[in-house]
């Protein structure tokens, strides 16, 4: 398999990419907790974290330090191998799945090498399958944690969650089959490109995305994805009232943090996957001929940066009056750079749209957490097997029928 054994330069590039992506993902993870707490707080008419740092921005750092220095007791009678393996497995698999995601179409030319955004090789023809394979293994982290803890609540939580994840994995996989049929490929880059301008098709912007013909598939995908990541309203494995904290009840300190990071990372992965499958990945929602929309990144960044500067000067604490205007200045400068250098602006388009869509997905996740009550366990199972799976299957049948009909009688 030649792509596994790259030249030495490519090896170094890949290692550098892994380090950078790891740093970015972990930082985003940390600030996702801040984002979630802030959004949920505002939904409930509270302020959320605001004591540590300006607008509570240093709260994730404080949390991280706290996780490191907490006592880490190991309960009596645990199965040591599985107990220590479980958080490692959960975190490692969650982080691995990010490696499959491509973040942009154009390579960055640096030191005479084409550096593509994303770790997986371009011709990873089993992209989506590889992602599902890694998710499928992710169940073990939860199951082993529940079993190894030698305690009743984790065991119940582990059993619940393994049943839930296995059930919804089926619906999740079936829901994207329609997209795969339309793209004719497992490769994530091909799936995105199939939603963009094609020879013979005019460039229609967001009209060409899979969300319109695959609206049924998206419905199933999104619900199954929320269930698969154990988030509200499907967070039965860790239902506080019934199971304390479910499978990670007996974990403390950094081992708990590993489960926490794994959960948030899989949220990011699933959001990326939804963006790729149904919302055109890095494609702009506007046709490429609308050149004015290329300045949208600047139009978003500059006012936001200026607002941060103006608002920052009036902040209560001295630290805030220094940090917020500084961050605002950097953001404004970034926006100006995009206007002044057309090359940079052209390069930034794809990642900009990709990240915006992922952010929107993450916001919906948090929004749901602030809004919806939890399902009952039997409702959850009935919903998955009796509604979601049949709808996904109908969607597959409908899509195949339309594609077959187009091939048979299609307008050439």
């Amino acid at each position, binding site marked *: *398999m030649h792509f*596994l*054994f790259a030249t030495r330069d490519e090896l170094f590039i890949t290692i550098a990419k892994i380090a950078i992506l790891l740093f970015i993902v972990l930082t985003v993870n940390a600030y996702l907790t801040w984002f979630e707490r802030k959004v949920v707080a505002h939904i409930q008419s509270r302020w959320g974290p605001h004591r540590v740092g300006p607008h509570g921005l240093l709260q994730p750092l404080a949390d991280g330090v706290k996780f490191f220095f907490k006592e880490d007791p190991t309960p009596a009678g645990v*199965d040591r*191998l*599985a107990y220590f*393996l479980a958080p490692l497995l959960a975190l490692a698999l969650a982080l691995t799945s990010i490696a499959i995601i491509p973040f942009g179409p154009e390579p960055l030319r640096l030191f005479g090498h084409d550096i593509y955004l994303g770790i997986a090789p371009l011709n990873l*023809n*089993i992209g989506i*399958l*590889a992602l*599902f*394979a*890694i998710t*499928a*293994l992710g*169940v*073990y982290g939860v*199951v*082993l944690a*529940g*079993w190894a803890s030698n305690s009743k609540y984790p*065991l119940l939580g*582990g*059993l619940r969650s*393994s*049943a839930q*994840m*296995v059930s919804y*994995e089926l619906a999740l996989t079936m829901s994207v089959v329609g997209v795969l049929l339309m793209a004719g490929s*497992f490769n994530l880059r091909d799936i995105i490109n199939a939603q963009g301008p094609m020879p013979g098709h005019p460039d229609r912007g967001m009209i060409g995305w899979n969300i319109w013909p695959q609206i049924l598939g998206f419905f199933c995908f999104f619900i199954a994805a929320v269930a698969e990541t154990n988030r509200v309203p499907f967070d039965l494995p860790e239902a506080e009232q019934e199971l304390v904290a479910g499978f990670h009840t007996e974990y403390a300190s950094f081992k708990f943090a590993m489960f926490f990071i794994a959960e948030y990372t899989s949220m990011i992965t699933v959001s990326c996957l939804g963006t790729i499958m149904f919302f055109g990945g890095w494609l702009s929602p506007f046709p490429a001929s609308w050149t004015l929309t290329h300045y949208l990144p600047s139009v978003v960044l500059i006012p936001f940066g200026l607002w941060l500067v103006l608002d920052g000067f009036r902040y209560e604490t001295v630290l805030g009056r220094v940090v917020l205007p500084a961050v605002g200045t950097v953001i404004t400068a970034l926006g100006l750079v995009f206007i002044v250098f057309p090359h940079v602006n052209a390069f930034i388009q794809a990642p900009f749209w990709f990240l915006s869509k992922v952010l929107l997905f993450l916001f919906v996740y948090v929004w749901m957490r602030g809004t919806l009550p939890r399902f009952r366990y039997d409702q959850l199972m009935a919903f998955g097997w009796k509604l979601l799976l049949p709808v996904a299957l109908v969607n597959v049948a409908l899509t195949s029928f339309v594609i077959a009909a187009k091939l048979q009688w299609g307008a050439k």
Partner: protein
Amino acid sequence: MGGEMTEPLLVFFVLAALAVIGAVSLILQKHPIHSALSLIVVMVALAGLYLLMGAEFVAAVQIIVYGGAIMVLFVFVIMLLNAGAEERTSLSKMAGPPGLLLVAALAAFVAATIARSGSSVQAAAQTGALSSTKGISEMIFRDFVYPFELTSILILVAILGATVLAQREKS
């Protein structure tokens, strides 16, 4: 084969060692969950070997179906039954020596077969076109569509049988 240690060969030996160690540990472990974990290691190592041979699709399906679905079911059932550590009876201890003999015989047979067809083993690594997703789907849904459908009917019958048996137990 030349004596040169190329990178694919190195990866092959690492994965093969992993698979063998996992398989041995599967038998030697006392606790069913540890045995199941060992089996997962074997499955994943096998998937790596498939990937090494260029069979991407088979590798992914190996992990999804065996590593994911089937082994999760195994672990789930072991947890649900709360199976304890294995108990050694005099009969299971007696099964050891004949089992070792059988293992030796099987290993000798497999080694002899491989030694006799040395060239075809190397050829197996180059069937990249056949192992692609498209090649596999053409084989399953065109060339061998009737055997494939028959197998699915067989599986359906098995599922129905299991359901009927489970229902009878309940009532």
